């Protein structure tokens, strides 16, 4: 383990930025935090987490896939893909690091999504342990330890110091760039911090939320649960939950006529939207209840069934904070899984 004084943090960022494009959470005018590209003068946010999840780095909200030139009856297709350059995402929380594994199991399984894969290969994740989890946090429900974040490098921030631990080759390479600014350290301060945070975690309002009653093999039983009517009644179908969710990965493919050709692009979509499954001859999910149910069944039953029991939720709490009608996955889990 290495450490550096927090006073040197801007020197560290400058050093990393010499070798990589560096992104880190910074405070915005509305006091929310957002991942932005580091530049001289950037100030690392103290916020617990960013409003938008870092999934944008690998699965951007919109991206061009290819271009077409259409002349009369003829079509010419241009592959516009470009290899991504190495970049660092600094300060990713344990929940969000886990979300990348969940996305990988969609985009990196055969046939590999080359757009996602290129960014994933070039992205270096520097994770940050939590010390002040909020009342909307429930990562422990999904077996995530916020004091022990994964990633290429894990960091722990104390009052005065930053502790670094490389977990992968990519991470070791990154640390080598800041070797002169860091020094060897023992794990005492980090261990103490972990212990303190663990105590806080146990006192959170959702500390006892469990996945009991969900998982593979529960499709028919839970699909037909009567509670979906009540739970979905006030859902506006706005899709905010899917957009802030680090693991939601449904997408649309659309064409845009530039006047000088056609760009086919991909953008985020939401199973909460009425047109998501609409076909020329009908729609297999006509009501908001069906669409609402799909989102939660997918995260808590269908995805685990296809992915060795792994749930497609990391308990980051963004949907709890942002849903305009205060409905969320925690309420669904309590109601359908049985109140604890």
């Amino acid at each position, binding site marked *: 383990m290495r450490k550096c004084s927090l006073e040197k943090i801007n020197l560290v960022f400058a050093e990393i930025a010499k070798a990589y494009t560096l992104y880190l959470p910074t405070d915005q005018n509305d006091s929310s935090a957002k991942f932005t590209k580091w530049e001289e003068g950037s100030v690392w946010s103290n916020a617990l987490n960013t409003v938008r999840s870092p999934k944008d780095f690998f699965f951007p909200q919109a991206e061009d896939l290819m271009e*077409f030139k259409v002349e009369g009856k003829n079509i*010419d297709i241009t592959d516009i893909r470009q290899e991504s350059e190495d970049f660092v995402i600094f300060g990713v929380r344990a929940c969000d690091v886990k979300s990348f594994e969940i996305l990988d199991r969609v985009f990196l399984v055969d046939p590999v999504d080359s757009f996602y894969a*290129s960014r994933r290969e070039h992205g270096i994740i520097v994770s940050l342990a939590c010390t002040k989890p909020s009342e909307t946090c429930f990562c422990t429900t999904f077996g995530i330890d916020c004091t022990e974040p994964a990633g290429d490098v894990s960091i722990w921030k104390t009052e005065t110091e930053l502790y670094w631990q490389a977990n992968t080759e990519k991470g070791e390479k990154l640390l080598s760039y800041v070797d002169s600014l860091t020094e060897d350290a023992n794990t005492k301060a980090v261990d103490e911090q972990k212990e303190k945070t663990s105590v806080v975690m146990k006192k959170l309002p959702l500390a006892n939320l469990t996945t009991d009653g969900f998982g593979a093999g529960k499709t028919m039983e839970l699909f037909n649960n009567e509670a979906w009517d009540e739970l979905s009644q006030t859902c506006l179908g706005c899709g905010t939950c899917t957009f802030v969710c680090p693991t939601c990965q449904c997408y649309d493919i659309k064409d845009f006529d530039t006047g000088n050709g056609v760009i086919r692009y991909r953008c985020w979509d939401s199973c909460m939207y009425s047109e*998501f499954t609409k*076909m*020329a001859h009908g729609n297999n999910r006509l009501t908001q209840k069906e669409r609402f149910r799909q989102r939660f069944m997918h995260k808590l039953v269908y995805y685990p069934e296809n992915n060795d029991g792994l749930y497609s939720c990391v308990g980051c709490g963004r949907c709890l904070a942002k849903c305009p009608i205060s409905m969320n996955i925690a309420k669904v889990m309590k109601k359908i899984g049985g109140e604890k």
Partner: protein
Amino acid sequence: MNMREETLIPKVGVITDVRIDTPDIKTFRVVTPDGKKAFDHRPGQCAMLSIPGVGEAMFSITSSPTNEEYMEFSIKKCGCVTEWLHQAEVGQQLTIRGPYGNPFPVDDVFAGNNMLFIAGGVGLAPLRSVINYCRHYRDRYGKIDIVYGSRSKDDLLDYKEIIDEWATDAGVNVHLTIDNPQDGWDGHVGFVPNYVKELGFDTDKIAVLCGPPIMIKFTLEGLRALGFEKTQVYTTLELRMKCGVGKCGRCNVGAKYVCKDGPVFRFDELDELPDEY
């Protein structure tokens, strides 16, 4: 980077023939610009066709894989992409990618069996691929029965091929029906599910169904009444799709994705899925 394969990036295809089948169904013959098949497929698999600027949609490949020269798509005019295709002429290019989905188990489960194909309307399109595959390898299969119905005589897809080729094959019985009586039609009149019950098939065969949801529902009930097990009956599903490879989330039903785990399903497999297809 550009060397890495990407399934979302299609090939260019060109329409080399347009056959008007019915008032709202046309069959398009497609090859690559150098005159070859865009890719090989198995009976029941699908392809994504697109017109840049209009959209992309999934279609079943109606021609048999045994046709080594071209692929055919029988397409009903009912949405944006299909309306555009219906005004396309020979020589029009489009984009094509695939093949997608699981095929019918023609070489293992179906081999050596009597086959019963039941289709309604444009539902014949995906079955034509299997039917012609079974006819091509005729000695691998037993007796073949084909029950096909449509609204009227004019709405019967592949009518000429059915009469001239299928109905004249040894060991192939074709049973056509239309919904209402019509001048110049001396065949059966009535809906497909009832016709299947009237014909009263033995259960010594594998049945393959495709058609409108209501036809499938009642035909399956009819087959069950005749003693067919759900494990003997196959169908092919259709849901909205964007990627074709189980990632965009659109065709997800239960833990399955119709594009990659289907579109071919056995009815006992469907029992394990929520009724959302």
